[in-house]
């Protein structure tokens, strides 16, 4: 079945070569980082996590969102998702690989990465994140592969796969919850110290992940002619609409508590994030852009005239993805560090190498996704 990824036209191979080249460029930047240290990034003493951990957070969400196609299909027997469930699972696979890579490139001593297993520390959320992410990766590879294989041979799925699928549903929730807990349990960072963080993470994940899936469906239809069906996309859009609105609501609820209570320890972060201060407006324009995009896309998804229009739909999906990427990427991770515990306001601008490494990881993720989707389409077209 794997060989199906090796059969493709000229355009397919151009795309693969292009992604490979981008990944290689990122890798050469990584070699430089390996040699000189993380000093070649824009991070520093005060902002000690940046673009890598932001992307890690975002893609854990995308990976978790596979549950939004798996759950209706397997628990509610929503047949329309039959064609796209495997795409959701493969999107999860490539996303989890990316999250592991983003953590890996963020390590100062990557050669010691296995210390996390050698000196396993159950009190550390990073340990648990490592556990849940790796198990989730394995689950999705097995489920996606076995399902596709059964489909190819026109057989029933083995019973144990169904059990694994049922387990994978709460597991998907767990990967994003644990990721939120990495942040929300730190006394040092009042910006993250909120019980609403995990629900917010899940809401924004269930908006951005399915939005990516909708885009994938459009791309597949355009390139291979494989139609996932209008109804499936319509259902996905419904999910995105609700998740987007819930996400906006949760953020507003957080902001109410922060601004009404007006404890400087909490409100100063939001003040800086949205309004900046003298000489520091770095993130505020992006944050406002994120807010506007979220509202606009919510409007497009809810309005029956716009949500049935492909152009509007694609635009709104892109808007949701960008909005969430800003909000829970740089907007969440970097803002937790500004101001620092000593009240210092530090500007964080990712360096070129840092961006190259990040884009390189995107390319690796897309390569894996392309190969897996290609296999899935080939199998599904044969049947």
């Amino acid at each position: 079945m794997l060989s199906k990824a090796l059969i493709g036209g000229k355009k397919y191979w151009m795309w693969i070569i292009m992604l490979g080249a981008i990944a290689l460029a990122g890798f050469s930047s990584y070699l430089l980082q390996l040699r000189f240290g993380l000093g070649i990034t824009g991070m520093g003493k005060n902002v000690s996590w940046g673009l890598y951990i932001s992307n890690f957070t975002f893609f854990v969400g995308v990976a978790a969102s596979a549950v939004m196609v798996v759950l209706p299909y397997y628990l509610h027997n929503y047949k329309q998702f039959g064609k796209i469930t495997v795409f959701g699972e493969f999107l999860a696979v490539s996303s989890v690989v990316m999250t592991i890579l983003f953590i890996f490139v963020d390590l100062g001593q990557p050669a010691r990465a296995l210390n996390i297993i050698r000196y396993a520390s159950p009190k550390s959320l990073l340990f648990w994140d490592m556990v849940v992410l790796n198990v989730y990766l394995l689950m999705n590879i097995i489920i996606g592969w076995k399902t596709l294989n059964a489909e190819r041979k026109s057989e029933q799925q083995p019973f144990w796969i169904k059990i694994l699928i049922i387990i994978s549903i709460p597991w998907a929730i767990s990967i994003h919850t644990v990721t939120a807990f990495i942040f929300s349990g730190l006394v040092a960072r009042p910006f993250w110290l909120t019980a609403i963080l995990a629900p917010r993470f899940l809401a924004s994940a269930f908006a951005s992940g399915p939005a990516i899936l909708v885009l994938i469906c459009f791309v597949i239809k355009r390139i291979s002619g494989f139609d996932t069906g209008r109804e499936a996309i319509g259902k996905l859009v419904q999910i995105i609409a609700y998740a987007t609105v819930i996400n906006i609501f949760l953020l507003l609820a957080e902001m109410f508590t922060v601004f009404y209570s007006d404890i400087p320890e909490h409100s100063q972060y939001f003040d800086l994030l949205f309004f900046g201060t003298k000489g520091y407006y770095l993130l505020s324009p992006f944050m406002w852009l994120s807010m506007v995009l979220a509202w606009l896309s919510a409007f497009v998804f809810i309005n029956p005239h716009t949500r049935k229009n492909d152009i509007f739909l694609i635009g709104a999906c892109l808007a949701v993805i960008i909005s969430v990427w800003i909000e829970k990427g740089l907007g969440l991770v970097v803002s937790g560090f500004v101001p620092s515990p000593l009240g210092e306001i530090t500007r964080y601008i990712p360096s070129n190498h840092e961006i190259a490494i990040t884009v390189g990881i995107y390319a690796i993720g897309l390569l894996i996704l392309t190969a897996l989707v290609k296999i899935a389409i080939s199998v599904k077209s044969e049947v």
Partner: protein
Amino acid sequence: MKGDGKNEDCKGLNLDRRKFLKITGLSVAGLSFSSVFSFIPKGSFANQSKQKTSPSIRKWAMVINLAACAKRPNCSDCIDACNIVHNIPTLKTPKKEIKWIWKVPYVSAFPENIHLPVKNGLKGLPVMVLCNHCENPPCVKVCPTKATWKREDGIVMMDYHRCIGCRYCMAACPYGARSFNWFDPRLFLKTVYQDFPTRTKGVVEKCNFCEERVARGFLPACVEACKENAIVFGDLANADAEVSKILQERHCIVRKPHLGTEPKVFYII
């Protein structure tokens, strides 16, 4: 610089490092405790020697007298002494700096205390800050490899050989006390102090309460370097130690007490 912390009596003994460690090891076991520390001048943490039954578990703590420190506004003796004995590199860019003990404005050190009336205009003066060696250290529980841990005597330790450089501890420290080696620190050292290891790039480090000196019966480098005796170090578990007496008699504060971390660096205001 080497050995300048040694007391005269100690020089007479001419002990090598291994013997020192041996003796300290014995003292930890509760034996010959007083004899080890008797050479330290009175007025420092040597008050312990009075105590006949030595406590088996000590709690190291530090008290910094802001008024005494403020007498020399441009002094950096404690910082310099620490930097030398711990091989701390000098990096020009503040973003990539390594800091174990450093100066910050009063409002940065005590953001929640700015409404307190503080005498002598102390509010405008800088405060020496360092790792608080918390009784309940948030950095320790987040570490995914147990590369940082709290010893029985309260010192929060770092294993530079186990740290994977994930910087979770830096995100977790409410005092900004941890630094990361963004580059190879050895490139930024003018001289290497042989009694303390240098670090590699990609690991986190911080103040270790001079545990390597305390183990040999010396005071921390910053305490020793201070000409105003503004920093006092000693055993909190011993009621007769100077730190314990100061805490009973003077009004002392700690940084961010509401977080429940229980810092063991106190400030006399």
